[in-house]
């Protein structure tokens, strides 16, 4: 089932199917000296989030690409809360340009805490920043 970005919640599960447009891409870095990695800002009509690209994904996408994520995961890696395909997921380009988006809220800029009623779930505690601090909106 396809979900909207605003409905994703941090979890250790590879079960997020969603579609978004890539707004901006950071510099590619080497992680652990072996794998390329890079962060990107992606968004749909209701929310934005940071996406982590791995290996050849880093060069395969650029700003303006509409991307479909299958079996993705939204979780913390190296203290950053990011959406990614992970080993079991897949991301592919399905189009270009023709998708509207918002840059706030950004789900990576929200502090999440375990749900007091259900410790397996996370809920939003506070907004750290309305917009991405890594990729500020264009003036």
């Amino acid at each position, binding site marked *: 089932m396809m979900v909207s970005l605003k409905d994703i919640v941090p979890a250790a599960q590879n079960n997020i199917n969603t579609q978004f447009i890539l707004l901006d891409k950071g510099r590619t870095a080497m992680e652990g000296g072996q794998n390329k990695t890079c962060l990107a800002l992606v968004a749909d009509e209701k929310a934005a989030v940071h996406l982590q690209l791995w290996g*050849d994904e880093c060069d395969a996408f650029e700003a*303006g690409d509409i991307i*479909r994520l299958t079996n993705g995961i939204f979780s913390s890696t190296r203290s950053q809360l990011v959406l990614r395909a992970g080993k079991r997921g897949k*991301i592919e*380009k399905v189009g270009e*340009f*023709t998708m509207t988006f918002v840059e706030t809220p950004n789900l990576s800029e929200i502090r999440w805490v375990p749900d007091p009623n259900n410790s397996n779930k996370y809920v939003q505690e506070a907004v750290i920043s309305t917009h991405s601090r890594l990729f500020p909106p*264009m003036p």
Partner: protein
Amino acid sequence: MVVSKLVKITSHEAENQLELSLRQAFEVLEPKLRPPFSLTIPNPQEYSQLNRAILYGVLSQPHLAKTHIKHLHAIVTDGYALFLSLLVNVVNELYSKLFDSAKNQLLWVTKEMIAVLGVGFDSLLVCLLRQIVGGDFSDWNLWLCFEMVNIFLDKWDCLLEEEPLVLTSALYSFLRLLADHCRLSSPDKLDSLKTMEIEFCVKMLREQFHLCLKVGRDLIRLLQDLAYVPKFRAIWKDLVLNPSEFSTARFCDISQLYRSRTSSRYFLLRITPEMETQLRFVLTHVKFGGQKRYQVWFAKKFLLLPERETLIVDIVRFICCAHHPSNEIIQSDIIPRWAVIGWLLKSCRKNYVEANVKLALFYDWLFFDERVDNIMNIEPAMLLMVCSIPRYIDMTHTLLEFLFLLVENYDVDHNDIIVKGVSSAFTILVQKGVVHSMNILTCCAALSPFLKDKLHRLLSGSNLGVSKESQTTHLRPCAISLSFPDISCLGTPTPSPER
């Protein structure tokens, strides 16, 4: 993963549904695609699949293409209508991704379809014309120009007989492309292509002028960009001085062209389907204020190379004349057309391009006639002038100055028409409520008194019909050398070898 023999798919790119449907049909039917062909008559479903399979075969197997096409000839029952509609979809959706060999095959099969006069071959030619990108001097783009002009020259008699309007479309495209091709300073690799493009356009203008008339006033706009090319200069001379040269009884004066509005389908010819999709998306979905990223993406994709800048002229013509938003959109918070045009105008780096963009923006003003013209074509220029007053008065000044420059100099022999056109344009924009009153300009404190004065004079003339001043201009003997629409004063085109 199955590899396509038709389109280049990069890693992490989803399959294209059209390509997939053709490939799957081909894979299923491949054993039946070689002789001896089945003699049984396919049912509609099988017929459709067979068409898809044969198309995939033709495009991906050059060595077997002749066999595939024979097969098609044997089974066809719909005048090739389905096959051609599939080809049109391939061109519109996949052209830029096709392998080089598939592009070659596409042009080959296009000629086959003309030879059998397949139903809709003219639409296929129009779609292919749209794939020629203005201001793109890459080898494959020039190859497509060459192939297309070759088709129009080679199949001239047949096209004239069967689908003469496709020749008119080709004329519009090649006149526009020639303006780019003649401007390039290193013309070696372009020489033979330019010769053929000129040959085709001159043949159209000299032999089939009644077809050229169908383009309407934008024919003049395009020709004026080529007036420095000797062969077109001669045509200009005749247009102005000897209209009877043009074997068309109907034509006696250039003003006939001025009075005929150009159909929007011509503007689409110089915009690729991809550009059209993106521009229409911005103008129907993107909120005013949220357009910045889209502008950056669009510019990066289509306008980045310096030679591409002339494309802005075509885009502005497209936005004014071929994209007319609904009232619902006009009243919404979606970015208006004038704002997109303001951005495009600001993106111009060369003076002559900027002048041509402004001319494109005001072109329908010059000859505006309520009976044939559409207020939506002139609305963006008015709103751009008015809405720029608070923060970008320079834009208002530049545009108004340019408009008066056109009124006074564009074609002094037809100054009466132009004065009337521009004042009618202002009048109807007020009448229909695009602006509430002309006071917004005539009483604008920030606007230069000089321009306000000119505006007053123009508008007072409009109430009296044709002003005295313009009558005298009209009656002036035109023996003075050669006078035709001249915008050379507004920006100098780059020198060309032919100059």
